[in-house]
């Protein structure tokens, strides 16, 4: 088992190297036309997204090593960082992203890096599977003593089998989501693992016109200084 997991780490490094090179090559192109600039930007962003996913896989190995500390995390700030990174993707795909914060408790017990990955995966999912000209929503609010970060998208609703698996609190393995073409379910699987590590609950709400994915985080008792 140990050698199998280490194989994942080696594979992650091997995969990251060409992606980093591809990104550098795109950056090295110098001055180019406006149309080509769009292609370059897309090349860079696609490489960065792929590297992030590979990094997430490597993080899963580090979970077992106890590399991620739980601490009070300012949830809105994490959401702001991720939305700012992905805003361009929504715009490029002719979709909107609405952000709504109504939480009174500012801090949750989590790991900032892992929480960032969970939210990132939810939002990437929303970008890919929302229909054009729809407005996805990222919201943070309190429910039953927990802080909930939810991402509502407007695309094919989540199939019942995945929904049922999510209800158990974790995804056991990546599973292709048939109604969401091209999805390997890897992002959801990774988010599930990270949530599990943070003692958080991951789940989904099915709507007629889409799905909300959420993670419920324990509220931190530490008083906020801000």
């Amino acid at each position: 088992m140990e050698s199998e997991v280490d194989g994942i780490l080696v594979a992650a490094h091997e995969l990251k190297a060409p992606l980093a090179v591809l990104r550098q090559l795109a950056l090295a192109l110098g001055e180019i036309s406006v149309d080509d600039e769009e292609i370059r930007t897309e090349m860079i962003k696609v490489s960065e997204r792929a590297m992030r996913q590979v990094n997430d896989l490597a993080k899963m190995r580090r979970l077992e090593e106890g590399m991620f500390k739980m601490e009070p995390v300012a949830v809105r700030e994490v959401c702001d960082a991720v939305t700012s990174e992905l805003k361009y993707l929504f715009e490029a795909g002719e979709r909107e992203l609405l952000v709504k914060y109504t939480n009174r408790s500012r801090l949750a017990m989590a790991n900032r890096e892992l929480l960032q990955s969970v939210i990132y995966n939810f939002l990437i999912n929303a970008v890919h599977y929302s229909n054009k000209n729809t407005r996805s929503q990222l919201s943070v609010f309190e429910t039953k003593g927990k802080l909930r970060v939810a991402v509502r998208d407007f695309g094919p609703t989540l199939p019942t089998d995945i929904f049922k698996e999510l209800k158990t609190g974790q995804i056991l393995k990546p599973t292709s989501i048939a109604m969401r073409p091209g999805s390997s379910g890897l992002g959801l699987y990774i988010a599930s693992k990270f949530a599990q590590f943070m003692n958080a609950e991951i789940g989904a709400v099915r709507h007629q016109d889409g799905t909300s994915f959420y993670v419920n985080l324990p509220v931190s008792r530490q008083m906020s200084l801000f």
Partner: protein
Amino acid sequence: MIFVIDDDLTMAKCIKRACGRADVRIFANAIEAMELIARGELPELIFLDILLDGPDGFTFLNELVSYVDTSKISVVVVSSLDFSGRDLSNYGVVGILNKETMTPEEILAYVK
């Protein structure tokens, strides 16, 4: 003269190009670079990958700081490993660039 030590030739070429200078030499491993340094060719700056074929970047850094004349060479670590929060200044490291996020402008800034 600037040295780029990286076993990924394409990445090394990207760094060389970003340096904007002609006197940039590329090495695929630390041994080749060390041999040239031992012959008296001291670079002003080295861009160094850490995970290399053969001796790794830290072995190379240890060699550099072991000698008076080479301990003064500025080194920029270029790696996809996470060195955030690590102080490598004892190794003569003046900067750390992450391969996943660095830009040609950041590379050039160290050259300047």
